[in-house]
C-alpha cells in the first residue's frame, strides 16, 4: 500500500462520530480485498444490498453485476496490481486516485488475450454510510489509454487514414490472437 494512510490526528478529524468507522479505513480494506486478496465475499461484507456502481460505458451496476465484472478482470489479468496514489476523505465521501497494471492474458470486454502489459490511471469516489457500509461507488478511468496500450485504438496522431489502416491491422491481429488462444486452450 502506498503511504497515503493518514496520521491519527487526521483520521480523528475525518471521523468525528463516535463508534463510526473511518470511511478511509473502509476504502483501504475494500481496495485490498477487491484487488489483492480477490475475495468473492467482499461486497457481501462491505456493501449495502442497494449499493450502486457507476462506471463509464456500463449501465449502473448492482453488487452481483460488479462482482461479475471484477471476476472477469481477475481472470483477464492474473498479475494485476494496484497502487494507491492519493486519497481524499471528508465526511461520508472518499475519493481515490489509483493505478491498475497487469498483463492481459484473458479475454476482457470483448478484446481477445493480447498478452500486453497495461497500466491505467483511475479515480474512484465512494460514499460510506454511518454503519461503514458502501452505498455508492463511482469510477472514471483512462479507457482510451488502456485501449491504446492494448493496440485497439490507434495513437492520437494517426488521423482517419491511420485509423483505418490500424483497424485492419487490429482485426487481423485479433483473429490471429483468437486462433492462438483456441489452439493453446487459453481462456475464452
Amino acid at each position, binding site marked *: 500500500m*502506498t*503511504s*497515503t494512510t*493518514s*496520521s491519527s*490526528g*487526521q483520521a480523528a*478529524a*475525518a471521523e*468525528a462520530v463516535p463508534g463510526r468507522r473511518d470511511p478511509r479505513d473502509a476504502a483501504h480494506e475494500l481496495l485490498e480485498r477487491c484487488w489483492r486478496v480477490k475475495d468473492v465475499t467482499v461486497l457481501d461484507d462491505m456493501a449495502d444490498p442497494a449499493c450502486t456502481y457507476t462506471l*463509464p*460505458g456500463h449501465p449502473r451496476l448492482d453488487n452481483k453485476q460488479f462482482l461479475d465484472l471484477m471476476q472477469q478482470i481477475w481472470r483477464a489479468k492474473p498479475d494485476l496490481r494496484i497502487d*494507491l*496514489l*492519493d486519497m*481524499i*476523505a*471528508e*465526511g461520508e*465521501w*472518499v*475519493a481515490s*486516485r489509483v493505478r491498475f497494471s497487469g498483463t492481459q492474458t484473458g479475454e476482457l*470486454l*470483448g478484446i481477445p488475450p493480447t498478452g500486453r502489459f497495461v497500466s491505467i*490511471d*483511475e*479515480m474512484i*469516489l465512494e460514499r460510506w454510510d454511518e454503519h461503514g457500509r458502501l452505498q455508492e461507488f*463511482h469510477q*472514471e*478511468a*483512462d*479507457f*482510451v*489509454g488502456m*485501449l*491504446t496500450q492494448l493496440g485497439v485504438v490507434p495513437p*492520437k496522431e494517426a*488521423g*482517419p*487514414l491511420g*485509423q*483505418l489502416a490500424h*483497424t*485492419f491491422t*487490429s*482485426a487481423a491481429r*485479433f*483473429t490471429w490472437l483468437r486462433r492462438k488462444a483456441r489452439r493453446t486452450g487459453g481462456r475464452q
Partner: protein
Amino acid sequence: MKEHLMAKPEQTEQTARPEQTAKPEHELPELKELAAHIADRVWNHADLGAIDEYFLPHFVGHFPGLPDVYGPADFKKMGADLRRALPDLQERILVQVQERDRVFMQAVLTGTHRGDLMGIPPTGVATVLTEMIILRFEGRKVAELWQQADYMGVMDQLGVVPPRDAGPLGQIAHTFKLMGRFGVLKAKDALRQRSAA
C-alpha cells in the same frame, strides 16, 4: 504520493476552529468554494482570465491521453480549444470532497459539438462528459490538477467508437462509414466557414 502533502496541517473543515488556527489553515475551509468559483468562471462564463488569476506559474496538469500540461498559458489554450469545439459548454459540479490542500470534484460537462474536437469535425451532437478532477492548492492558487473523464463515452456519442459487439469486421465497416461521414462533415464545415466569411 508526495510527502510534503502529508506534512501539511491536519485539521479538516469539520473540526477547524478559526480562532485557534494560523492563517494558512484558516483559508482552507474555503478551498471548496474557491474551486467551484474557478470552475464556474472558466467553464460556465468562458472567463479564461480566471486561469491567469488562480493558477500558479509552475502549475502542472495531468490529463488522460495527453502529455502533462505546464503553466497557465497551455491550460488556457486547452480551455480555448474546448470552447471552440463546444461553444455552449457548461459544467455542473455533483460532488466535492476536500482534505487539506486538495479538492476533489465530480462534475458533468455538456456542450454541442460545433468545432473540431479530438480531431473530429463538428457533428452538431449534444455531448455529455462525466469527469473527476483533483485540484491541489498552494495557498489560494492551483498548483496541480488531475483529471479522469469518460472521453470514450463522448466518442461513442459522436459515433466514432464502433458498437461494443461489432467485432473486427463490424469495426472495419464502421471505420469506412465514419470516414465517409467525416468527409461530408468536413466539406460542410468548410462551406459554412466560406459562407460566413
